C-alpha cells in the first residue's frame, strides 16, 4: 500500500482536471460534486490503508519515502517530487482526507444551485491536492509547493464570490499575508541548505536526510535565524500574530471552505511544519520561546476579539486563531505531540462548528431569501432560538462547543489540557512557563465564554429573526447533517486516543496511544532537548491533577458568565458596552490592527509607489533622459543662430578660425 502513496494526492488532482476542464460543460451538480467527493474519499481509503499498514510495522520502521522523479536539479541543489510517509504525515493525511471528504459531501448540499458550482469543487479538490502535497512532501521544497498551493486555493475560495469586493479584498489579503510568510519560509530554507552545504558538504533539503544531518546544526546562531524565518512562514499560514488579520476576513468565502481550509487543515500547516522540522526548531531555545510566546499571545488576543463579534463566522474565525495559538504554544514549549493532538481534535470540533454555522446560515439565508429580506444571515443578533428549528445542528454544535471549551471527556479537553500542562511543566523556558500557562488558562476561560455566548445567542432564547419568515426556518438536508453528525461524534470521542497518563492510569492503564504513535517522529527533539534543557522542577501528580481541575474550572466559569450574560440577564452586555464604549469599540474593531497595518504598510507602500512612479520614474529618470534630449535640442536651437545667413559672419568665422589655429600652433 505504501507504494501507492502517490495515489493520495493523485485522486484529487484527477478531480481537478476533470471538473476544471469539463465542469462547465457537464453542469450536472450531482456528478460534479459526487466526483469531487469520491476522489477525496478514495484518497481517504488509500490513507486508511497506509495507516493500517504503518500500524502493522515496527515503530522505528514507520518511515517510507516514495520518489516519483527529480523535479529541480541545479548544481548541488536537488529537489525530488517525492513523498514521505511517517506517523506524523499519516495523521495529517487521515485528517485532511477524512474531514475533507465530509466537507466535500456537505458542500454538495450547501453549494446547491450556486453559479460556478464546478469551479467550487475544482478549487476544493485542488486545495485537497495541495494540502496533501504539503503534508506528504518529502522535502522542504515540495512542502513549499503545497504550502503555496493551499494559499492559492485559499485565495481562490475566499474570493469565490468574486463579484463582492470584500471577497476579492479578503482573498488578496490572505494571499499577500501568506506571501509574507512564504518569504520567511524561503529564507529559512536557503539558510539551512547553504549552511549545511558549505559547512558540512551536506546538500539536502530532504526531511529524512535533514533529520540525520540535524546533528551537525549548532544550537542557536544560524539555526535561530533559520527557524525564526520558518516561524514567520508559519505565522502567515497559521494566522498568528502578527500575520493573523487575514483569517477573519477570509470568512468571506463559502462556509464549508472556512471549515476545511480556515479551521481544519490549511491553517494548521504551520503547526505541521514545525512538527515536521522539530529537530531543527528544538535546536534554538530562542525560537522556541518566541513561538511559545507568540502562540500564547495570539490565543489570548484573538479570544478577546472573539468576545465582541456579532458575525457568527467571525467569532469562529477568531476562535480558530486563538486555538491555533494554543497549538503554537504547544510547539513552543516542546510539546509537539500535544500540539499535533490539538491540531487533530481542533480539526474535528472546529470543522463541526463551522459546518454547523454553515447549516445555520444556510437556513437563515433560505428563510430571509424567501421573505425577500436583506438582513445579514450571519449576524447572531438576527438569530436566537434556533434550537427547536434545527435540532441536529444544535446538538452537534453544542457538543463541539463543549469540546472546544475543554470540558471532559470531550476531545478538546484532552488536547488543551495537555498543552496547558506542558506549558506549565516544560523544561525549556524557566520562569516564563508560569506566564505562558496563565495566559493559556485565561484564554481557555475566554474561549468557553465566547463559544457559549455564540451558542446562546444563536440557538437559545427568543427567536429574533423577522417574524415574517420565521416559519421558513428548517433543518438542513441530510447531505449537510450527516457530516455534522460524523464530526460531532469525532469531536466527542476523538480525544480518547490521547488520554494523558495521569487519567489513563486512573482508568486502568490506558496508554497514551497518540504519544506513542508520534514518538519516533520527535525522537531527535527529545535527544537534543536533553542536551540543553535544564532539569526543571518535577511536579507531582497532584499538581497535574490540580491544574487539570483548574482548567475545567475556568472553562465552567466562562460558561457560567456566558449563561449569566446572555440567558439569565441579557441586559448586562448592553449596560457594559454603554459604560465602556471605548473598550467595546476597540474590541469590536479588532483592536484596530487592520487600520494599523494599513497605516504602517499598505498606505506607505502605495504612496511610495506613487511617488516613485510620478516623482522618480517620470520626473527624475525620464526627466534626465528627456532633459538631455531637451538640452541638446535647445543647444541646437541656439547654435543654429550662428548660421545667420550673412556672408560677413561666415567669412569672419573662417578668418577667426584661421587666426585661432595659427595662434594655437604658434603658442602651444
Amino acid at each position, binding site marked *: 500500500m505504501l507504494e501507492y502513496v502517490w495515489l493520495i494526492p493523485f485522486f484529487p488532482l484527477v478531480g481537478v482536471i476533470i471538473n476544471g476542464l469539463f465542469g462547465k460543460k457537464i453542469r450536472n451538480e450531482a456528478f460534479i460534486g459526487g466526483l469531487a467527493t469520491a476522489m477525496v474519499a478514495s484518497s481517504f481509503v488509500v490513507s486508511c490503508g497506509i495507516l493500517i499498514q504503518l500500524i502493522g510495522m515496527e515503530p522505528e520502521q514507520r518511515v517510507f519515502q516514495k520518489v516519483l522523479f527529480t523535479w529541480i*536539479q*541545479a*548544481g548541488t541543489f536537488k529537489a525530488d517530487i517525492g513523498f514521505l510517509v511517517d506517523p506524523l504525515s499519516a495523521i495529517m493525511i487521515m485528517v485532511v482526507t477524512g474531514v475533507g471528504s465530509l466537507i466535500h459531501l456537505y458542500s454538495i448540499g450547501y453549494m446547491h444551485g450556486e453559479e460556478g458550482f464546478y469551479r467550487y469543487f475544482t478549487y476544493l479538490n485542488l486545495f485537497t491536492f495541495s494540502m496533501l502535497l504539503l503534508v506528504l512532501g518529502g522535502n522542504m521544497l515540495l512542502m513549499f509547493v503545497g504550502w503555496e498551493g493551499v494559499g492559492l486555493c485559499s485565495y481562490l475560495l475566499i474570493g469565490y464570490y468574486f463579484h463582492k469586493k470584500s471577497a476579492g479584498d479578503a482573498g*488578496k489579503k490572505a494571499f*499577500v499575508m501568506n506571501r509574507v510568510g512564504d518569504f520567511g519560509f524561503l529564507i529559512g530554507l536557503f539558510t539551512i*541548505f547553504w549552511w549545511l552545504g558549505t559547512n558540512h558538504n551536506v546538500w539536502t533539503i530532504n526531511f529524512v536526510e535533514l533529520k540525520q544531518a540535524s546533528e551537525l546544526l549548532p544550537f542557536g546562531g544560524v539555526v535561530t535565524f533559520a527557524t525564526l524565518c520558518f516561524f514567520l512562514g508559519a505565522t502567515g499560514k497559521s494566522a498568528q500574530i502578527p500575520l493573523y488579520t487575514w483569517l477573519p476576513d477570509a470568512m468571506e468565502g463559502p462556509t464549508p471552505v472556512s471549515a476545511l481550509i480556515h479551521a481544519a487543515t490549511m491553517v494548521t500547516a504551520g503547526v505541521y511544519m514545525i512538527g515536521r522540522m522539530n529537530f531543527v526548531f528544538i535546536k534554538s531555545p530562542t525560537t522556541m520561546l518566541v513561538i511559545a510566546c507568540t502562540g500564547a499571545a495570539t490565543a489570548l488576543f484573538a479570544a478577546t476579539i472573539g468576545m465582541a463579534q456579532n458575525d457568527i463566522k467571525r467569532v469562529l474565525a477568531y476562535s480558530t486563531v486563538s486555538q491555533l495559538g494554543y497549538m503554537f504554544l504547544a510547539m513552543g514549549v516542546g510539546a509537539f505531540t500535544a500540539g499535533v493532538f490539538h491540531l487533530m481534535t481542533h480539526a474535528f470540533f472546529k470543522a463541526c462548528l463551522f459546518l454547523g454555522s454553515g447549516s445555520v446560515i444556510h437556513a437563515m439565508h433560505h428563510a430571509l431569501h424567501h421573505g425577500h429580506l436583506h438582513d445579514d444571515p450571519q449576524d447572531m443578533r438576527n438569530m436566537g432560538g434556533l434550537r427547536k428549528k434545527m435540532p441536529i445542528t444544535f446538538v452537534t454544535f453544542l457538543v463541539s462547543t463543549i469540546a472546544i471549551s475543554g470540558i471532559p471527556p470531550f476531545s478538546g479537553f484532552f488536547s488543551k489540557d495537555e498543552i496547558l500542562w506542558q506549558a506549565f511543566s516544560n523544561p525549556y523556558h524557566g520562569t516564563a512557563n508560569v506566564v505562558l500557562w496563565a495566559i493559556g488558562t485565561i484564554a481557555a476561560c475566554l474561549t468557553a465564554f465566547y463559544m457559549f455566548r455564540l451558542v446562546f445567542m444563536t440557538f437559545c432564547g427568543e427567536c429574533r429573526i423577522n417574524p415574517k419568515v420565521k416559519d421558513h426556518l428548517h433543518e438542513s438536508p441530510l447531505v449537510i447533517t450527516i457530516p455534522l453528525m460524523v464530526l460531532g461524534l469525532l469531536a466527542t470521542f476523538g480525544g480518547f486516543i490521547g488520554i494523558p497518563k495521569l487519567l489513563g492510569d486512573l482508568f486502568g492503564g490506558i496508554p497514551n496511544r497518540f504519544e506513542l504513535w508520534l514518538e519516533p517522529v520527535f525522537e531527535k527533539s527529545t535527544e537534543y532537548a536533553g542536551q540543553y534543557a535544564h532539569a526543571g522542577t518535577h511536579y507531582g501528580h497532584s499538581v497535574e491533577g490540580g491544574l487539570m481541575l483548574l482548567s475545567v474550572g475556568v472553562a465552567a466559569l466562562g460558561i457560567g458568565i456566558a449563561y449569566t450574560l446572555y440567558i439569565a440577564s441579557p441586559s448586562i452586555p448592553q449596560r457594559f458596552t454603554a459604560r465602556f464604549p471605548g473598550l467595546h469599540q476597540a474590541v469590536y474593531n479588532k483592536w484596530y490592527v487592520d487600520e494599523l497595518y494599513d497605516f504602517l504598510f499598505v498606505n506607505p507602500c502605495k504612496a511610495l509607489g506613487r511617488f516613485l*512612479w510620478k516623482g522618480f520614474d517620470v520626473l527624475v529618470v525620464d526627466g534626465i*533622459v528627456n532633459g538631455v534630449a531637451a538640452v541638446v535640442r535647445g543647444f541646437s536651437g541656439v547654435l543654429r543662430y550662428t548660421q545667420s545667413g550673412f556672408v560677413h559672419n561666415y567669412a569672419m568665422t573662417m578668418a577667426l578660425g584661421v587666426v585661432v589655429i595659427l595662434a594655437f600652433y604658434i603658442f602651444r
Partner: protein
Amino acid sequence: MTSLLTIMTFTPLVGVFVLLFINGRSHNALRGLALAVTVVAFLVSLPLVTGFQNTADYQFVENIPWIATDAFQMHYFVGIDGISLWLVMLTTFIMPIAILSTWTAVEEKVKEYMICLLLLEVGMLGAFVSLDLFLFYIFCGLMLIPMYFIIGIWGGKNKVYAAVKFFIYTMVGSLLMLVALITLYFKAGGADFNITRFYALTLDPATQTWLFLAFALAFAIKVPMFPLHTWLPDAHTEAPTAGSVILAAVLLKMGTYGFVRFAMPLFPQATAQFTPLIATLAVIGIIYAALVAMVQEDVKKLVAYSSVAHLGFVMLGVFAMNQQGIAGGMLQMLNHGISTGALFLIVGFIYERRHTRLITDFGGLAKQMPVFATIFMIVTLSSIGLPGTNGFVGEFLILLGSFGSSLRWWSVIATSGVILSAVYMLWMFQRVMFGELNNPRNQTLTDLNAREIGIMVPLIVLIFVMGVYPTPFIAKMTPSIDRLITHVQTRQLALNAVPAAVQTPDHADCRQCPQ
C-alpha cells in the same frame, strides 16, 4: 544537418521576399503565409533540441569567412550551446503565437506588419546563434529597425515618442558597446571576432573595467535595468500586442543573454568588481518596479513594470555566479518570455474588445469571460511565481543561488519582492476580473474565441510543464553554465594571482605606431 541554424535563421527572410509579392489587400493570405513561415522556422528549430548533446560544446556550428580583409576578419560563425539553445527555441516558439495574436488586431498595413515581424525574427535568431561578436552586433542592430517600426507605426497614442525613445536609448548603449568591441578586437591582436578567442584573452583590470562598463551599459539598457528602464514602459504600452509580446519575450533577453554570453566571460575580473553594483541595481529594480507597478492605472504599463522586476531577478541570479543562480536566471528568462508574453497577449485580448487598458474601465470580467478569467489567473500565478508553474522554478533557483553567493543580503531583499509581486499582480487581477460587472460596456464582452484559446494553450501547457518538470531544460543548459562558471572563476583567480604590471601595453603607445 550542418546548416540547420542558417536555414532556421533565414527562413523568415525568405518569407519576407515571398510576402513582398503578395497583394497587400489579401490580408488573410498575408497572415497565413507569415504564420506558415514562422511555423516552419519553429519546426526547423525543433531538431536543435532533439539533436542537442548535453555537453558544453558549441553545436550545429557553422563557420564561414564573411568579411575578410587585411584589417578585419569577420566570420559568419554561428552555433548554439546550452545557454542559447532555449532562447532560440523561445524565439521560434513565440513568433507563431505573436503572429496569430495579431490576426484581427492589425487590420491596416498588414503586409508591412508581417514583414517587420519576420525581419525581427531574423534579427533575434541571428543574435542568439552568433558566435562572432561582430555578427552579433549586426543582428542586434538589425533587430532594432523592425521593432522601431512596429512600435511607431502600429502603436498607440504616444507611439512616436515611445518608438524614438526605444530606438535612441538602445542605440546609445549599443554604439558604446561597438567602441568597446573594437577595442577588444585590437586588444586581442586583431585577428577576428571569434568569441571563443576573446574568451581566452587575459586583459588587464583597468581595460576590463572600461570594456565591461561599455558592454554592461548596452546590455543593461536592453534588459532593462534600473535606472535605465524608462523606455520600457513607454515602448510596451504603445506597442501593438505582438510587439509587446516579442519585446518582452525575446528582445529583453538580448540584454541578459548579452551579460551571460559576453560581458561576464569576457571580463571576469570586472564582473567580480561590479557584481555588487549590478546586484544592487537589480534588487532596486525588483523592489522599485514592483512598487511602481502597484500604482499603475494602465494594465499594460503594470505588466511592463513587472517585466523590469522579473528581469531584475534574472540579473541577480546571473550575477550570483553559481549553478543555481545562473540556471535560475536562464530559466527565468524563458519563464518571463512565456508568462509576460502571455500577459501581454491577455492585455491584447481585452484591449481589442474594449479599446482601453485602464484598470478602472474594467471590473467583474470574470463573470462575463470565464475562460479568459481562468487563463488570466493561471498566467498571473505563473508571473508571481507560484509553485507548480514555471515562474517558481526560476525565481526559486535565482534566490537560492544568490543566497548562497556573495549576494546573500541582496537575495533576502529580492525575496521580499516575491511579496510585492503578489500584491500588484493580484490587485490588478482583482480590479480587472473581480467585483461587480457594473460598466455596461463590459456587459457585452464575449469570451475568448477558438483562435485566442489556441494561442494561449501552448503557453499554458508550457507554464505547467516547465513548472513541474523543468529537468530537461536545466539539464541541457547545465554543462554550458558549468563551463561559464569555471571559466569566469579560474580567470578571476588567475588575474588575482598575476600582478597588474605584466599586462598588455597601454594603447597610448599605439599612437606612434606607423600605419
